[in-house]
């Protein structure tokens, strides 16, 4: 494995009885990267994270964290990882500071550094002044999540893995957690899973989409957009009907198709269109639509597909390919990349 990879996973498979929760999952995460793990329920996100944190053994395949094999040396991997499991279970009877000190001792923080380490993570997670002596059972959901993240940060881990860190939080709390993750960028490798796609898009440098136990896409939002939803998208508000619109496009030799349309006020219609080509299409479209007979262009706006649309496209494609029992394009790509790395 390459040294700049903080996490390196190859052909990881885990069976629960006869059912494969994940099958031949391969990906890697570079040092200092913030990576989002996306997938529908039951896709295998939590299983992958639990294997990486040494909680669960894999049925086959291999995983390395900071150059250490998870299967061969799980204890060492646990020293290098800070893991926050889904639902963030915490003991309700303990005070925040007591709990963090206890976890620090378990994570082998040296006695003379323990107090300072706990203070540091409480400061980072904004717990030092507000919740220091509070009993965990009385804390709000947001503060509980902060305690979980503070726990994951204890012991100077190289990698932080967080399973659904923002589940059940209100928008203010989500923003707070996002700022916290941003503050870790570059210092630590962060892997987080979430269902809230805009949050992943804003927080993460890269996204790995997993569906039915397989990695179906991996890359930055722009790369995924290019792969799954190529071309340019525009939202056009016009009085022209569908036929007139297509005629106007063909008159200017613009290859465009209408994705969907909805009726607006005063006989206007809002169309979402996809056009082939890269950049510079906006002026051509305006030109085509203003020259069209008996129609008025009210507005035209470029529209970038968001992660939700990419996610839906990627998972839909993987479903179709799974039904056809063919490996997905990304699986082939991932396998080739892994082979190249080995070579």
């Amino acid at each position: 494995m390459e040294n700049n990879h903080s996490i390196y996973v190859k052909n990881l498979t885990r069976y629960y009885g006869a059912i494969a929760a994940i099958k031949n999952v391969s990906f890697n995460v570079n040092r200092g990267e913030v990576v989002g793990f996306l997938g529908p329920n039951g896709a295998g996100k939590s299983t992958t994270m639990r294997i990486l944190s040494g909680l669960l053994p894999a049925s086959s395949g291999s995983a390395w964290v900071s150059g250490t094999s998870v299967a061969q040396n799980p204890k060492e991997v646990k020293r290098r990882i800070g893991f926050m499991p889904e639902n963030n279970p915490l003991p309700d009877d303990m005070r925040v500071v007591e709990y963090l000190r206890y976890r620090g001792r378990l994570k082998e923080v040296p006695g003379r550094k323990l107090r300072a380490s706990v203070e540091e993570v409480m400061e980072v997670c904004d717990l030092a002044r507000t919740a220091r002596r509070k009993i965990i059972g009385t804390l709000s959901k947001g503060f509980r999540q902060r305690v979980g993240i503070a726990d994951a940060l204890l012991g100077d881990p190289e990698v932080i893995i967080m399973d659904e860190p923002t589940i059940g939080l209100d928008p203010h709390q989500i923003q707070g957690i996002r700022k916290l993750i941003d503050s870790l960028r570059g210092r630590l490798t962060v892997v987080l899973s979430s269902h809230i796609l805009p949050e992943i898009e804003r927080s993460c440098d890269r996204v790995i989409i997993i569906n039915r136990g397989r990695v179906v896409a991996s890359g930055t939002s722009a790369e995924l957009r290019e792969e799954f939803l190529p071309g340019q998208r525009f939202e056009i508000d016009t009085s022209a009907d569908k036929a007139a619109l297509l005629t106007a496009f063909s008159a200017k030799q613009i290859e465009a198709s209408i994705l969907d349309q909805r009726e607006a006020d005063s006989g206007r219609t809002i169309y979402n269109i996809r056009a082939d080509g890269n950049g510079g299409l906006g002026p051509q479209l305006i030109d085509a639509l203003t020259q069209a007979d008996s129609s008025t262009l009210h507005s035209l706006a470029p529209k970038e597909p968001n992660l939700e649309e990419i996610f839906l496209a990627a998972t839909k494609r993987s479903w179709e390919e799974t039904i056809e029992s063919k490996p997905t394009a990304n699986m082939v790509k991932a396998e080739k990349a892994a082979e190249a790395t080995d070579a």
Partner: protein
Amino acid sequence: MRHFFILLKHELRMLMINPATYIAAVLFLCLMGYLFWAILRGMVNTPEDVAPAVRFLKVFWIPVLFVVPLLTMRSIAGERNDGTLGTLMTTPASRASIILSKFAGAYIFYMALWLMTLSFPKIAVEFFPQTAVGSGLLATSSTLGSIFFLALSGVLFISIGIFASSITRSQLVAGMFSFTALFLVIVGGQQLSNIANSGADLAAWTQSLVNYFQVFEHLDDFSRGIVDTRPFFYYLSLGGLLLGLSTLIIEAKA
């Protein structure tokens, strides 16, 4: 080993701050106090050769059947249900140290409860100094032997509780399983002996095997000062086996 002590300290601390601990302790001491009083009253009417303290410790099975499940049912099952067992296992602490700390925490509390019952004869001597001397309330050697038996058998009983707690995430199921298993070990051994004695001409090895499981016989031997190695092997090996199985179970069911 370092993790074991950290976890044990945490276990004891959690026991100390948990109100259920104090409720269990008060119930235990009330019940045992009542039993001690009942034994003393019985002895007033019908004098016996056995010291009251020994007679008292012979009813050890009554509190064991409810205190051990109460003490141990939460240890693993509750933590698994809350999810805190998972977070514990993401630390470098080994599975064995987790199980041993749970065992040691419950065992220390169990023995502390029994040691507190030693104050009963003292209290009786304080209140009835004349009667007490004559009836041999403070039969030190027999009492020490019995306590030694309780310490030894406690290893197995607490291990049963920990094992029961490790196989499920429901505290209720763990408690019921633990109660049944303890009942079988304590009362079942006695019944096995009754069945064996009622039958004719058992082979010598069968007889010795039946005796091997006689918990009450072991108590009698210890209270008379007979220290046999067979009960040591029985309680420690079976206790160790159950703790080992619990370690494997939490690893498999993480």
